[in-house]
């Protein structure tokens, strides 16, 4: 399934194996994200989607295989090099992960203050521009505690693009959002990708939504990419695991029942 | 936001100031080696010479008939006559103390602190600033007393043995 390493590959994952406490999460995972594209990584809960992101960011190291981001081997970077790599990547966390002791404005200004010495007027203009992009310029002075879930995620998105990253990683951007907020986030991901040309990786299990905007999709199952292709190609696949996930069937290769002893035997045995 | 950051700065400043003030109080007002604010009320100074002041400390009370009338402001050694010169500050309102009064170094309790007790004389002239008390009685040093007592016992025993 390994894709040829193209010059336009921003993220390249090759034969990665990773296990936590003896439980294998990835077993020969291959994945590529191309420049300027939206790559969707889908999969049922517990298939290690968040683990994949942590591997990409160099927070954890794979047991085997290579992960290269912008052509650099992430697992081999020391802290300073890793940090300078991370400055080129924006990340949107599942629940936003905004700093609870800072205002909306200061949250967006946070990476700018941390990495650049900008004069205050320029910084202010930059932050307002980023907030304008997510439609929250009017909320600049609000405290993060007063934000709704959808707004918090938009602020987090403004913060993620504050440093003008070349790669944006979204971790479950649609979880827990009402349809309107969901539509807003979806449109933002697409706009950021098409207007700024930011390469995007979206990790999600919301098949419908992401299929509308993704250029390329991967479906994780059993520690590897079980299927890959455009959303249309994926839908045409007949592999049972892909089918089950895309159509939301309760039983299939991912069984409905957790493995257990025989039903009748367990009910009739004289328990304690 | 501006007002909260201001109140934060004021609060922090107040705390740090208070902390250093307390630290200053501890290091300067408490220890023996520290400088001290002059807390002497309106008073006049009288000297007294003692053969031995024991462990009389600066600041110890000066009493008359058991009532506090002043305090010790200085304890010095006079190399001329090998005596201790004690300066007493006596409150101005007690300005009719006879100049032939005597001063004794006394102990509060068995092991307590030393203080200076004045006993009234009969003269019609009064102590004034800079005058000296002539009649003094030194501190009872417990160790000396005990030594004397044992020496006395030992002497008696020797005498008994000779007889």
């Amino acid at each position, binding site marked *: 399934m390994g894709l040829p390493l193209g010059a336009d590959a921003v993220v390249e994952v090759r034969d990665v194996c990773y296990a936590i406490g003896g439980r294998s999460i990835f077993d020969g995972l291959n994945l590529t994200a191309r420049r300027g594209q939206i790559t969707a990584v889908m999969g049922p809960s517990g298939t290690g989607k968040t683990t994949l992101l942590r591997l990409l960011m160099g927070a954890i190291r794979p047991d085997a295989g290579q992960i290269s981001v912008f052509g650099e081997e992430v697992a081999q970077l020391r802290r300073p090099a890793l940090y300078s790599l991370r400055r080129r990547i924006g990340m949107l966390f599942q629940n936003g992960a905004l700093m609870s002791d800072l205002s909306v404005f200061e949250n967006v200004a946070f990476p700018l203050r941390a990495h650049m010495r900008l004069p205050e007027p320029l910084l202010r203009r930059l932050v307002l521009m980023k907030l304008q992009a997510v439609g929250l310029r009017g909320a600049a002075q609000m405290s993060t505690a007063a934000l709704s879930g959808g707004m918090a995620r938009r602020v987090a998105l403004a913060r993620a693009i504050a440093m003008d990253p070349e790669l944006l990683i979204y971790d479950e951007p649609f979880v827990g959002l009402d349809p309107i907020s969901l539509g807003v986030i979806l449109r933002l991901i697409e706009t950021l990708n098409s207007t700024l040309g930011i390469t995007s990786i979206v990790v999600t299990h919301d098949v419908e939504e992401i299929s509308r905007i993704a250029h390329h999709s991967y479906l994780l199952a059993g520690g590897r990419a079980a299927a890959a292709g455009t959303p249309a190609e994926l839908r045409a696949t007949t592999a049972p695991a892909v089918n089950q996930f895309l159509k939301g069937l309760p039983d299939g290769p991912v069984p409905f029942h957790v493995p257990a002893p025989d039903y009748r035997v367990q009910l009739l045995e004289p328990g304690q | 936001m501006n007002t909260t950051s201001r109140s934060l700065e004021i609060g922090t400043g107040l705390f740090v100031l208070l902390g250093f003030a307390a630290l200053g109080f501890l290091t300067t007002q408490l*220890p023996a080696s520290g400088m001290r604010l002059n807390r002497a009320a309106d008073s006049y100074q009288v000297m007294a010479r003692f053969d031995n002041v024991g462990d009389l400390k600066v600041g110890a009370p000066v009493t008359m008939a058991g009532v506090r009338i002043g305090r010790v402001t200085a304890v010095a050694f006079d190399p001329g006559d090998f005596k201790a010169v004690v300066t007493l500050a006596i409150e101005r309102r007690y300005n009719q103390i006879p100049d032939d009064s005597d001063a004794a170094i006394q102990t509060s309790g068995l*092991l307590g602190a030393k203080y200076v007790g004045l006993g009234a004389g009969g003269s019609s002239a009064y102590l004034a600033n800079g005058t000296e008390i002539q009649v003094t009685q030194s501190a009872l040093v417990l160790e000396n007393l005990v030594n004397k007592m044992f020496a006395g016992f030992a002497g008696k025993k020797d005498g008994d043995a000779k007889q």
Partner: protein
Amino acid sequence: MNTALGRAMLRMGRVALFLVRVLAQCLPSLRQPRLLVLQIYNAGARSLIIVMLCGLFVGMVLGLQGYDLLQRFGSESALGVAAALGLVRELGPVITALLFAGRAGTSLTSEIGLMRATDQLTAMEMMAVDPVRRVVAPRFLGGIIAMPLLVAIFNVIGIFGAQLIGVGLIGVESGSFWSQMQSNVELGDINEGLIKSMCFGVACSLMAVYEGYHAEPTAEGVGLATTRTVVSSAVLTLLLDYMLTAAFLHS
């Protein structure tokens, strides 16, 4: 026994390594002095009321107990010395450290633990900001700076508390109360208290930030970490107190 000992060694090693990591970031963190000011406010100014109140009561108790003990030997004039030495050398640093662990330490732990639980620390790391420099080091330094100041305030209030009871209520002679104190307390005693309070400040702040930083990212985990902060701060404070007292008595 073996595993318990092993776990204790492991924990001590981790705390020590974390201390090295925090110390390395202390100087760089000073580039943002506002963060430090905020933490001095949180650890110090916010603990002020409780420290003053407790100092007053401890001083008053010392006044009563000290008088009751000393008058049996007829030395109630030594009440000032007894109270001042007891406060400056022992009770001030220890009780303030215990109060600090309960008031400031727990809030440090739960704050950092909550930042861990809501991915704020991970987010910083992903934004190439070291959370140890941005979050942990200012809180650690703030605690270290606040502690000796809190102890000094506790001591002064305590001495006046003892004076309030001893001189004001019982009627010990005010002059001998102060003069005895001033002639018998030495600068070395005050230094001993100061050094103790600095050591306790390091210990309590370190335990608070360590537990917060390593809290399980759940509500239950943060609660457990907060409890551990109080327990280990208290034990560490009393242990250090014994060792420091012994060291000072020998020197």
